[in-house]
């Protein structure tokens, strides 16, 4: 992806381990001590499933980038 020219990866110089909210999309769902709007953490399984099934295919993205590069 278009991250080659980024100066430095996040947080790597500050700590060897990245915060969990950067490495796991569901990290905060495990915050049992937090107050939750409906008394407990929500269930994101359906949204995450839709995400996994219908995220944009890589080939479509690379074509799109190439297309843009022409103009």
């Amino acid at each position, binding site marked *: *992806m278009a991250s080659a020219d980024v100066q430095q990866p996040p947080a790597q110089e500050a700590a060897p381990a990245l915060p969990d909210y950067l490495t796991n999309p569901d990290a*905060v769902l495990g915050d049992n001590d937090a107050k939750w709007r409906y008394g407990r953490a929500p269930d994101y399984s359906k949204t995450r499933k839709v995400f996994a099934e219908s*995220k944009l295919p890589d080939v479509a*993205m690379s074509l799109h980038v190439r297309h843009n590069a022409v103009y």
Partner: protein
Amino acid sequence: MTHEAGSLPELVQNLVKNWEVEASFKPNIDDWRTIDRENYSFAINGGKAEGAEAMLKVGTYNAIIAPNEYYSPDYSDFASSHKTFKRMMPTFAWEVLEVYSGPPTVSFRWRHWGQMKNDYVGFNNKGEKVTAKAHGGSIDIQGVTVATVNDKVQLQSVRTWFDPMDMFRQIAPDGVVKKEEKPKNMSPADALDEAQAGIKAPEEQELPDEFIQSKEEVKETIERLDKMTVEEKMSTTQGLPADHPAVSSSSNTDAEGGRCPFMPGGFN
């Protein structure tokens, strides 16, 4: 997009997904881990920057959508905004498409998409009740966000640009909507309830949500969630079908026996 594990696009994507969970479901800002509380602000399309409290008060939809001929936060409180959008489009997935710069100023383009499963019912900038028939097709929008982050990669200044009308054009692709005067002596939430009577979408809900579900449905959802451990919730997000019964860890000691018979190898 499939982003390499640990790549900048994947890290940004995870950060924003966690932020969205917190903004939507953690009513106490002190519990938010994805923001730099002292320096956090949020603005859409160059509008007035607001703190986390403002978003908590009106809800994420109202904080993001400007008043227009289809919808207005002025006539929709937190509860009715959820009814309007979550009933129409039960899941609204989000992905990062491209990252243009990394910390401390992270800029990226994103995509937000779902399926219009039920009729759209909302209140517009004139207070009229607007309805659009469900077409079952996709609603698919994109935008750009520029965010500064601190050394813990917590969000500070979050500035997003997108075309808010894009979503409504896709809700009513032929411009066909029904507009009615808002019923008098009725709150927007009650009027929505009346208009959406008969819509049952709990199977698609990702939460026990008393704004959308009946008391019984909330109870069922909570019971289902209670049966799941956090680990199971997370592994479910990796792939078990949406309506797959919870798989308890005790019954899953046999790697073959405890798994879904239709997808014994699991999902990706």
